[in-house]
């Protein structure tokens, strides 16, 4: 058994082929290292089953640093389960899930994953309903998270203007003192995107961002997501094909828990397999 452990240690992701990584910075275990690879997220051979039903079936997927990736697929294709695996809500039965080169997400808690730089916007907008928009962003703000720190901390001017900048980005500056429970549905979605941004994530997971939005709100959301790519890596799960066409660079189609096709929107739309299971119905 210990021989196997040794072998594993030799083949640790951050140590293998060290000679090939000369000149790149050394990374301590437990720290995000996205600098030495072009991908930021590695999902390999992930299988998740619920009572025999395979929600994810040998899913292998890579997300590049800074890209805007759209994930589509019919209901039950495993989109939300995939998000759950990445954020630590669901543990895979088998397979590996790495954030950067070093962080094994399958061994980390939800909180640790959030702190490592993965932010998630849920399908149903979940904000803190009794807090104002401003306070929602303040709570989400990147920084120490301990109770004692929270008791003694006070907002600096810098932090206040950061929060206000983010409020402006998501179009809520006017309503910043409004209690979040009273915001419209679309505003809540934006507020939640703002909260995810305040965590300074490397990777943003956005689950159905335009559900229940008006036409103009959809357009603004598209602009917002496009402007976020580059600085962050963004993964969007959506049903609305038109919306995806308007923002996507790369599209991944999931079907029955694994990747069916991947490419530009054009390629994917013309793929006979995709037409058969999803678009052609």
């Amino acid at each position, binding site marked *: 058994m210990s021989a196997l452990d040794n072998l594993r240690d030799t083949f640790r992701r951050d140590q293998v082929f060290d000679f090939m990584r000369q000149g790149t910075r050394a990374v301590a275990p437990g720290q995000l290292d996205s600098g030495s690879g072009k991908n930021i997220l590695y999902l390999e051979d992930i299988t998740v089953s619920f009572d025999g039903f395979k929600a994810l079936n040998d899913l292998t997927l890579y997300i590049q640093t800074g890209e805007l990736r759209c994930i589509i697929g019919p209901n039950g294709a495993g989109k939300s389960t995939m998000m759950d695996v990445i954020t630590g809500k669901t543990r895979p039965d088998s397979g590996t899930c790495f954030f950067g080169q070093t962080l094994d997400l399958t061994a980390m808690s939800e*909180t640790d994953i959030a702190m490592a730089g993965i932010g998630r916007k*849920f399908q149903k907008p*979940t904000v*803190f309903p009794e807090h104002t928009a401003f306070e929602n962003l*303040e*709570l989400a703000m990147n920084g120490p*998270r301990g109770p004692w720190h929270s008791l003694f901390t006070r907002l600096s001017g810098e932090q206040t203007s950061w929060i206000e900048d983010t409020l402006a980005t998501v179009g809520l500056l006017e309503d910043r*003192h409004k209690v979040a429970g009273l915001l419209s549905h679309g505003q809540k979605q934006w507020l939640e995107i703002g909260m995810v941004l305040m965590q300074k994530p490397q990777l943003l997971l956005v689950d159905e961002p335009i559900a229940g939005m008006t036409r103009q709100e959809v357009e603004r959301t598209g602009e917002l997501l496009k402007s976020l790519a580059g600085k962050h890596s963004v993964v969007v799960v959506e049903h609305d094909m038109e919306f995806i066409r308007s923002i996507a660079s790369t599209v991944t189609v999931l079907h029955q828990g694994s990747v069916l096709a991947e490419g530009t929107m054009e390629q994917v739309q013309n793929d006979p397999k995709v037409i058969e299971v999803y678009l052609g119905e």
Partner: protein
Amino acid sequence: MRDSTFKSAFSDRTAKTFMGVLLGATLVVTLLNQFFPPDSSLHVSAYTVTLLGKYLCYALLALSLDLVWGYCGILSLGHGAFFALGGYAMGMYLMRQIGDRGVYGNPELPDFMVFLNWSELPWYWQGFDQFWFAALMILLVPGLLAFVFGWLAFRSRVTGVYLSIITQALTYALMLAFFRNELGFGGNNGLTDFKELLGFSLQSDSTRVGLLIATALSLAMAFVLCRWITGSKLGRVVMAVRDAESRARFVGYRTEHYKLWIFTVSAILAGIAGALYVPQVGIINPGEFSPLNSIELVVWVAVGGRATLYGAVIGAILVNYGKTVFTGVMPEAWLFALGGLFVAVTVFLPQGLVGLVSQRWAALRKQFPPKNTNNDTLTPAEGEAP
């Protein structure tokens, strides 16, 4: 000014009003008791002074529950346990103060131990002859129990009604344990026959007034402390945990640490309340652990109004005043009245009395709007450091 500090919590308007009313009333009662002869119609009897002191202890206990229930959504049905533990710690000190004035005249052992033929003081009674040690235990014992209990419960993500049930079980188990003579806390009879506290006779009027003042000051300090906590970022995180716990977790907060923190602080406050209560009523027995006490406590907070702090205080005082009056007139009906009150408040006044008053106030303001109305909605108050 958004984030409160301990200093700013002192000077905010609610805290000032609260302290003003509380300390003012205490001062008036003190003067009426001390400076008017017993036959004067303005004289306040020592009985009333002690009764008021008792109410204020209950108010402090209600405040501690409001902190966990109102702000963090943890409905503890076992807060009476922390109150009783603080009370027992104080009771042990008072027992040791009796010395050789007990019935059996043993300078070392309390009466009930002599009665049980014990030859020496158990190890856990050591040190309680010192007030500083007892004071430390008043804070430590409830705090430690809450910490261990909370650590186990919150780490396993026990929430909602399950948590309420196990807190209830906790206080019930402690009650059964304290009923046993072998445990060394006086069994069924508890600890009583206290003589003096810090050298002051507990029977004298001035000591009773002193205890009332001490209780009022403790309540005022606890109120400021709670205002500080709830006004800080910690308070906002705790409320976020109450409203959307899993969201708070995804934002990166270890919600179990926050719950544990607030639960422990609350238990310590409850322990202080118990410690102030015991010298005023002159007895502590296992009945204080009874689940019924903890449930009554929940009713006080619900009647006053949750998550306002002063609501809990008002609720505790009003319900207990009602209890005093009611049990004098028709004692057998009190429990029905209490039950009816709880149902009525839950159905008709989900925000409690405080909520009712502020609703009426808002309605009045709508009807008769003050002259300068339109400039207080959009004032950006944050970020301006003093």
